[in-house]
């Protein structure tokens, strides 16, 4: 049995040596400025993160020796990290607010927020006033909107999500005035909640909804004030509930960060934006 201890000890020692060997020299690690020359950290909106990650991969392969780390977590995190210097660039899926004048925004793409219901729901169009009435609990039954006699299950976004902020800005509601039955975090979660409940209503990114509808999710995008919720209408600006996806920075851009932002906003990333179901900015 003594032998077993030796074997385990030897494996542990080997593992430790491998790990230590693969670590950079302490000097290289501690001088953050030196690392920052060739590496960039982006944090923020989980809506933007998959797109930024793909752009980062293309940038890395075009510029060997550079490293771009992309972390999700929400637009709030992007703004906080950019201000504290934890990230070189923040990802924010809305326009900057008045209190955020210390940051500069670099738009990447557009995204619309679509109202979704279950595919079995006959409602095809909602006005802004009807939407407000649903979310404040004034209409508790689909019958009030000419639908079936069934209670409305209101699906709402959690605090700190820019989709929520945009929704509140459009409807003019305060979050405390809404009467949600279900509160969710991410886009796909919203789609799953509505797909699973014939009486639910929710709002998610139009690109995500279009993708999931094309792949058989039993949901439908509802027109808003007579304008169909589609990528088309987000691009031409006619759809009222749309947002801009931004990279933000607290300091003037220099070096790698400036180069990356230029790369991300150029024509060559258009296919990546479309592949993530967002809408490229009008060229």
């Amino acid at each position, binding site marked *: 049995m003594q032998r077993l201890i030796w074997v385990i000890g030897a494996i542990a020692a080997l593992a430790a040596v491998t790990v230590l060997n693969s670590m950079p020299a302490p000097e290289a690690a501690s001088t953050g400025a030196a690392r920052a020359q060739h590496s960039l950290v982006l944090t923020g909106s989980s809506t933007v993160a998959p797109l930024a990650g793909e752009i980062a991969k293309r940038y890395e392969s075009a510029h060997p020796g550079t490293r771009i780390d992309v972390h999700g977590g929400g637009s709030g995190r992007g703004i906080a990290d950019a201000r504290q210097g934890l990230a070189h660039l923040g990802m924010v899926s809305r326009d900057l607010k008045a209190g955020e004048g210390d940051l500069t925004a670099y738009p990447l793409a557009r995204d619309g927020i679509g109202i979704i219901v279950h595919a079995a729901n006959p409602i095809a169009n909602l006005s802004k006033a009807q939407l407000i009435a649903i979310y404040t609990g004034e209409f508790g039954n689909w019958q009030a909107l000419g639908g079936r006699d069934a209670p409305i299950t209101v699906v709402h976004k959690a605090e700190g999500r820019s989709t929520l902020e945009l929704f509140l800005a459009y409807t003019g509601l305060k979050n405390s005035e809404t009467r949600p039955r279900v509160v969710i975090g991410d886009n796909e979660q919203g789609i799953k909640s509505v797909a699973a409940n014939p009486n639910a209503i929710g709002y998610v990114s139009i690109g995500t909804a279009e993708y*999931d509808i094309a792949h058989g999710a039993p949901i439908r995008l509802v027109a808003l004030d007579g304008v169909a919720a589609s990528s088309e209408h987000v691009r031409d600006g006619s759809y009222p509930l749309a947002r801009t996806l931004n990279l933000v920075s607290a300091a003037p851009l220099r070096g790698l960060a400036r180069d990356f932002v230029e790369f991300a906003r150029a024509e060559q990333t258009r296919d990546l934006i479309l592949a993530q179901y967002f809408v490229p900015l009008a060229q």
Partner: protein
Amino acid sequence: MPARNYLSRDTAAAALVWSAAVVVAALFVWLTGDIVWRGAAYLTWDFLTAAPQDAGRAGGIGPILVSTLLLLAVCLAVALPLGLGTALLLAEFTVEDTAFARAVRRSLDILAGIPSIVFGLFGYVFFVQVLGLGFSILAGGLTLACMVLPLLIRACEAGLRAVPHEYRQACAALGLSRGAALRRVLLPAAVPGLLAGAVLGVGRALAETAALIYTSGYVDRLPSSLLDSGRALSIHIFDLSMNVPGGDRLAYGAALVLMLLLLIINATSAWLSRRWSQGRIVSV
């Protein structure tokens, strides 16, 4: 007549107990069946070694598997010695019912009940910002270690306490020093309990998402050092199913791999524990 009454009551109770067991088993079969059914197609060597592409919709989970194992290694390398030390102090070097021991135990129980996101935010402030580790596997592993420690300590302590008191008396009677008694008799006898604690800890660490989002981060590149960010399997599954339209299919593949990883770790530790406790004490 009363006898028959008892009989029917007996049958009813038995039926109740059986149906409860069947419900639990059915839930388990449904859950694992669903994951195996939808994930089995992805269980190929390519999927296990290739890098993810198109935000995870294509490609594999190679770098993510490496990051997950590195996170686990950091977590265990820190948590095991610390946990064992504390458990030894609690079980062998303090009287069970002193105020100090009670206070330590109470705080451990409270720590064990704290939601993991709180540990995550603590790690985000302490390891990532104050210690300047950045979003890295090291920061994530240390956060996991903090989270797993209370579980580990309590399980190890229970393992040590399960060793019959006669062993300690026999050691004392033989004139063994305390260190020798620990090394030769008490620890080997407690190994099954210690391994059970380690498995619990590993299980919790592997399944963890919330504590890692803000510490070890999302980067799905192959890490070249412990100071690189690395995406854990659980975060990959979360991201694929929640943020990436069309990521569901591969999320099932990743979930299956995570489940198999846990099974392998559990089986290995059970085997180790059996082997160890069979010969260890008598062969000394």
